[in-house]
């Protein structure tokens, strides 16, 4: 890549920082240059987020229909899977799967709900009262 080809596209990085890349200067030697991002990879990241957001919407629907407890939705919203949630909460994976059943979730103690809420960076109220506005 040549110095005058360094992409300066508008991406998620643009307002926050610039990234450093290595380019050939006018004399054919390498030097570093700063880029605000590249459309091609920006689109790759956008695609990845669209996939994540689509899964999250489906998870929310499942919770509102009463098929899953809010823990399932917030787990996905925080880009976690059951193993990662188990590491953060200290619960067994088996226990978390149970907590994802609405009937069992509704009987959970405040202490346990608090552990989840803390991991998800929300209040217990938010965890319990999930709405379409999430």
């Amino acid at each position, binding site marked *: *890549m040549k110095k005058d080809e360094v992409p300066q596209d508008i991406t*998620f*990085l643009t307002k*926050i*920082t*610039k*990234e*450093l*890349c*290595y*380019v*050939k200067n006018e004399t054919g*030697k*390498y030097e*570093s240059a*700063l880029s605000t991002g*590249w*459309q*091609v*990879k920006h*689109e*790759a*990241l956008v*695609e*990845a*987020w669209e*996939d*994540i957001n689509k899964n999250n919407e489906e998870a929310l629907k499942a919770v509102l229909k009463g098929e899953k407890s809010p823990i399932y939705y917030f787990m996905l919203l*925080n*880009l*976690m899977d059951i*193993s*990662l949630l188990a*590491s*953060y909460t200290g619960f067994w994976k088996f226990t978390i799967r149970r907590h994802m059943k609405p009937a069992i979730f509704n009987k959970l103690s405040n202490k346990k709900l608090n552990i989840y809420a803390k991991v998800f960076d929300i209040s217990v109220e938010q965890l319990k009262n999930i709405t379409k506005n999430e």
Partner: protein
Amino acid sequence: MSKIDYQHIQSAHCENGVTTGLLRHHGMAEINEPLIFGIGSGLFYIHIPILKLNNAPIISFRILPGQIFKRSCNLLGIKIISKNFRHPQDAQSFLEKKLNEGVPVGCRVGTYHLPYFPPEYRFHFNAHNIIVFGKDETHFYVSDPVMDFTSILTPEELSRVRYAKGLMAPKGYLYYPDRVKPLDLNTLKSAIVSGIKRNTRDMLYIPGNIAGVRGIAYTSSKIRIWRSKLGLRRAQLYLAQIVRMQEEIGTGGGGFRFLYAAFLEKAAEILNEDKLLTASDSFTEAGNLWRNAAVEMAGIYKGRLVEQKDFDRVADMLMNIYNIEKQAFKFLSKMKF
């Protein structure tokens, strides 16, 4: 408490950046990012089909986290101190002790809870590296080499990212070079030669077909069957994943190939060996071809090109890259230093 007079250095990749920053802080002014990357034999390729990251296969253009720092310091004759801590309190008090002694410290952290990161980049990635270089009553001072500014983190924020959970959990891991001596030219020369030899060996002779240059051919063969096997949408997301691994902050563009070409150019100058410039050109070409392939892949995941022949074209481009990189490493392996 104190703030160490540390010069923030921005780099393409976090681990190169932390290594370069710490060594330069200890007086090794001739060290820069491409040198560290090359001496640490950082260039690699691996396609791990079984493990998934964000529901797509893991593809990496570099060696395992932590290796660049270890290999380059070893070859430069620098002793490293590194530690894990079972308890976050111990991790923090040890860090504060080193800062009080005036020693900037490298820390491995998770990116998901890093407040100064762009939100769209906050994934559960636990092999990010930062330098902590000071503390006042309320905050730690942090130099993150991929950002163009230094940041501050509260003790709680720092502890949270140092104790991120999941794959490669950092467990408070910190590290710093100890008793750095001035670098003599012969050590530097022999470190460069060893780095090149090791990288050549890793890329050409690693067993199996998913790693080294053969890994590129493996990915190529997979790209040909993804569309019919997984359906268009999943195949598109897999290609998007390749582009992210190849170009996302950290690689310096072209899946680290430009960074390696910059290293070989510097090595040619230090070793006074023009053949290395020829090799450098090959990696510049490989980097350019990786970027061309990314443009084609973007055409597919944006839905402009969706036929099997479009996937085949990308696969052909990767086979071309495979051949160029194989020839380049064979050329390097035949060189006498």
